[in-house]
């Protein structure tokens, strides 16, 4: 396979860094998926669409004169509220039903939000401002865009903030306890229902961040997050659906690998990046069904 680009370290470095930036976006959304899976044992297929919706909300605020960072923070608050509401209203009634039922519910949410976004905001593609200047810095001979640095920083910063929250605060501990053993948590006086709602709230915030970081590059349209969602899923599953660390590592890994594959493997090019990544993922899953970091579940007869 002929390499389309003459291989230089500078070029390689560039692909890696931009891969890390897009990987950070996948990691954020993947972490959102894992967070929800760990607490409510549900895979939220609508996570991407919820992110799209909140990104549109941010766009609307900015369009009406609000400057970037205030709009950003306000969007996160709205996203949090939205996530909590969805859990309490839609998921709570079906908490005890089989997994397949809740998956279908989130698919219904996916379909509805996807349509709603197009209906309320219009299907035309819109431009989304980036808070980061359109410059590049040169580090060690590699040209890195400030946008990529900013994206990486914001996403990973949020991830670290969440990690600290879960490790250090009482509420964070309670949420972890609920994820591991909700029945015992109840006996400790934890209001399990609200912990689950909080989990959804945080996940929605992560999604909103992923959306707002992705929008400047992929442009704002109703299907914006579909591909990101698939990569995020792939990252979550690759890392082990119950491992937050795995989700983040998986996301970054996928971001970098996709970029490198697309740049250096002629066969893949631009169009087949997604199918190739998914093929690799499927191979990994068939060999190791619980992902790289996941706990192996032994099915005892």
């Amino acid at each position, binding site marked *: 396979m002929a390499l389309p680009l003459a291989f230089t370290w500078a070029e390689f470095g560039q692909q890696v860094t931009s891969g890390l930036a897009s990987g950070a976006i996948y990691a954020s959304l993947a972490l959102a998926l894992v967070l929800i899976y760990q607490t409510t044992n549900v895979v939220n297929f609508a996570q991407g669409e919820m992110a799209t919706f909140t990104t549109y909300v941010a766009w609307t605020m900015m369009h009406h004169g609000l400057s970037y960072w205030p709009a950003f923070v306000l969007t996160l608050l709205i996203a949090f509220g939205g996530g909590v509401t969805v859990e309490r209203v839609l998921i709570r009634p*079906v908490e005890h039903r089989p997994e397949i*039922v809740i998956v279908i519910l989130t*698919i219904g949410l996916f379909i509805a939000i996807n*349509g709603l976004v197009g209906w309320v905001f219009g299907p035309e593609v819109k431009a989304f401002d980036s808070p980061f200047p359109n410059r590049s810095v040169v580090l060690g001979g590699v040209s890195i865009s400030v946008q990529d640095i900013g994206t990486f920083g914001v996403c990973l910063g949020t991830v670290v903030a969440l990690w600290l929250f879960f490790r250090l605060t009482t509420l964070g501990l309670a949420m972890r306890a609920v994820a591991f053993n909700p029945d015992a948590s109840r006996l400790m006086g934890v209001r399990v229902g609200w912990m689950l709602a909080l989990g959804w709230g945080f996940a929605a915030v992560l999604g909103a961040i992923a959306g707002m970081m992705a929008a400047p590059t992929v442009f704002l349209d109703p299907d914006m997050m579909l591909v990101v969602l*698939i990569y995020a899923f792939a990252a979550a599953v690759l890392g082990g659906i119950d491992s937050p660390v795995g989700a983040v590592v998986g996301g970054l890994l996928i971001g970098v690998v996709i970029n490198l594959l697309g740049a250096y493997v002629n066969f893949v090019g631009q*169009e*087949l990046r997604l199918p190739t990544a*998914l093929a690799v993922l*499927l191979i990994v899953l068939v060999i190791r069904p619980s992902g790289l970091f996941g706990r192996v579940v032994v099915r005892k007869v």
Partner: protein
Amino acid sequence: MRRWTTPLLQGLALAGAVLLIAVLPRFTSEFRLGQFTYVGIYFVALLGLNILTGYSGQITLGHAAFMAIGGYTAALLILGRSGFELLGHQASHVLPQHGMRAIFTIPIAGLVTGVIGCLFGIPALRLAGVSLALATLAVAVSLPAIAKRFEHLTGGGGGLSLPLPHAPFGWHVSTPHWLYYEAWVCAGILFVVAWLLVRGRVGRAWRAIRDGEIAAVSSGVSPAVYKTLAFGISAAYAGVAGALFAIQVSYINPDTFPVTLSLLLLASAVIGGLASLSGVIVGAFVLEFLPIYAQSPPLVHLHFAKQAGPVVFGVTLMLIVLLIPGGAASLLVRVTRPVRTWASRS
């Protein structure tokens, strides 16, 4: 004495349905007939989906991808190498030189797609629940990209235009009538096949696997065989539906069967009622007519945007899951209970 009353009622209902389908073309406009043809096509697709998800418990978000495979198979066989090259593409040598009659491509498309489905089913054995949903979603999202890339197989992004369909063998039937009957005869045959499978040993094995794979093993059922079989059969149904669709529209391109369709197929199956053959017909009607009525509801002189369709679809699906998990079919059971109790008593 009582035992034959329920099957009798079911038989009567079925006979009534068959009669209705047979005489419908005399009473509807050509446009409506086209819509009912789509209902028939969706019916076939949903039968397959229900077999996979409803009866054998394997969730799929990629059913439309198998429809695409069936559609492309049919399209390529109809064109043949000559037709394909006429459209300006380099044809593969696998393709026969001359195109064949559309009607014969339908079972071949079903077979090809069925085999591919089985092949997919084998690695899918290692996946369950979430991972399987993701894998099928991956297939659905990847297929358009793959189709665009491999132009010499699929005609690339531009798609394939097929010659306009008409009744074969010189039969004097108008095209819309012909397409309608073609779809519904396929639907009827495949319905009988599905019914026989579901009520027989295979269906019992599927249900055992769906309800508890480990328990199924201890009753001598081999999950691997039956799960793969379910994938294959469901894919074959999708392939037939895809072929019928391509013939109906006389065109196919990578975006004819998008991800959204896979999701809507699943949604329709659930709304109709999983693991229920009578729910499938409801699902087929919902899939065809709900988007239309969401955009322009009857009786009200309002016109909504195109996106009203998905919104109503999604909301309906959520309401069904929340309130009537068995779907429309379970409602039907509840509604007809007084009739059936009366029938079995008198």
